[in-house]
């Protein structure tokens, strides 16, 4: 009785003490979270650890034979692996750039204008994200076969842009709707033409969103296996190489490349976290903050 009353009063004052009290009393939820998160870390740790294993063969093995940097020093020793990695990086960078260039105006149109094609286009963007990769891959190959377009680097790029545009549009629409148009209206009131208002107000505000959309595209592209497997023709990307090698046992260098991508990803994520904390671009108004009692 007294306990609940105290808890009630504490809730009214601030939620923090209650949270701590609950955390001490109910350790099940945090325990569950950390166990599951721990399990999801296992493959990452195994990948990093075994990229340093001095295996006697050129396939990964369980027995630990000592620490070595040999595989990192001989990254391109495996036939085709270095080439595949380069192809993946090229496709990822190019498709991210093109997707941002095409997706940003599309997001502007969908979020800031009412026009006839708006509904159908939003539907297409939604379907593009929702469609299963296997269907998109098979359909794309059907299209290239029917139109006698030979598959290869070019078709991989075309299709990667097609699925990345949708991600860029979603990220930028969220950003645009969060921004509101008060700042653009203010620019217009101060005599800016729509064009000037766009270049001097909207565009700079969109840069973080374009960066986020581009990074998401980069990640989706460099990691895509299913769709690429259909439209790659003779070209081999990094995921295609790994998939092929997985059947017979991975060369340790694959784990090195995986570790390098992982480290780059973590660095970008951490930098992004620090930068967004340092530079609040739009004023953050917490409309759902509890009213003072």
């Amino acid at each position: 009785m007294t306990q609940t009353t105290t808890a009630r009063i504490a809730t009214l004052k601030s939620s923090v003490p209650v949270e701590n009290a609950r955390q001490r009393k109910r350790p099940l939820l945090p325990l569950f979270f950390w166990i599951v998160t721990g399990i999801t870390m296992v493959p990452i740790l195994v990948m990093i650890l075994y990229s340093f294993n001095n295996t006697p063969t050129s396939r990964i093995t369980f027995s630990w034979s000592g620490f070595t940097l040999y595989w990192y020093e001989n990254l391109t020793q495996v036939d085709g692996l270095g080439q595949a990695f380069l192809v993946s990086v090229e496709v990822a960078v190019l498709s991210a750039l093109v997707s941002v260039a095409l997706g940003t105006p599309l997001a502007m149109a969908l979020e800031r204008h009412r026009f006839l094609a708006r509904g159908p286009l939003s539907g297409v963007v939604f379907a593009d994200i929702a469609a299963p990769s296997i269907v998109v891959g098979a359909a794309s190959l059907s299209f290239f076969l029917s139109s006698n377009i030979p598959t290869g680097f070019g078709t991989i790029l075309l299709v990667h842009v097609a699925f990345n545009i949708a991600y860029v549009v979603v990220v930028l629409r969220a950003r645009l709707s969060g921004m509101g148009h008060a700042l653009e209206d203010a620019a217009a009131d101060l005599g800016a033409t729509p064009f000037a208002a766009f270049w001097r107000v909207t565009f700079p505000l969109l840069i973080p969103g374009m960066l986020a959309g581009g990074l998401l595209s980069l990640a989706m592209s460099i990691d895509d296996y299913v769709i690429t497997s259909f439209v790659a023709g003779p070209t081999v990307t990094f995921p295609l190489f790994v998939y092929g090698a997985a059947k017979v046992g991975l060369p340790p260098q694959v784990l090195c490349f995986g570790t390098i991508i992982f480290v780059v990803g973590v660095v970008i994520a951490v930098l992004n976290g620090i930068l967004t904390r340092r530079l609040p671009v739009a004023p953050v108004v917490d409309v759902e903050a509890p009213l003072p009692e």
Partner: protein
Amino acid sequence: MTAIQATAPAASPTPGPAAPVRDGARKRWWLRHTTPYLLSLAGGAWLVILFIIPLVSGLVVSLETGNPDDGYTFTWNWGVYGSLFVNSDVSYLTFFLRSLGYGVSATLLTIVIGYPMAYFIAFRVSARWKNTLLLLVLISFLVSFVIRTDMWAFLLSDQGPVLTALRWAHLASKDFHILGTPGAVIGGIVYNDLAFMVLPIYAVLERLDARLLEAASDLYANRPQVFLRTVLPLSRSGIFAGVLLVFIDAVGDPVNASLLGGTHTYVIGQAIQDAYLTNQQYNVAAALSTVLMVVLGIILFAYARIAGTENIEDLV
């Protein structure tokens, strides 16, 4: 002010000096109505040509007849759809049902595992740690999908550390395997798709008005009741978005079944891939992929109706 200028000449009988103003208004009208089309032209065209038209040409290719050696010609062969499922040499129906079964199991498991995780981050973690924990949930995405799935195959293989340890402790017999079982495939899907469930649920829980929960306990709801009758119904849209993402991915995915499964876990995704890329039965592969899309569409539409979500688009 512009409005007055634009309408005034229309009332005046002498249109001479007003013409440029009306031209300006027309130009602005024109600009306002063409701008969205100009903005969406390139991106929209790309999506139509490389996403919508391919889906249609998938249907077209499925209606072709022929063989890998002589090529295929379009013959309106609707019969392919029947022949794949009735008295077929290859039991595509089994692969379909198996895929749907794996998809449903994996989706339910991601809800059961992902919901508490999202709840924990939303309600039990102080604001400054939330982003870090979300990053931890997402961190697997920084490792290549095929590598992280193959790492499980590496760990769970018959000579791998997990089974070796279990056998050493006499918890598993010699002929107990993990790889090649439906459990391994479903587990792989759950591992790969968990974040797709955690994130949308978290996004909804995070926006939940804390005063509603307070109101529920003021009305004498105990803790389970607050959860079951307030939090859970309010987070339905998050679960819906998660189900959409996980289920679609899980049903079509060939990678988990291929790397973690065996001959008894062959799924429709693998069948489409093999028909297209290995056996070059283009019409069969295209027909299977069209059926998969239609089946998924019907299931998700029905689910959307039952779950009572008005606007699917708002969720993505």
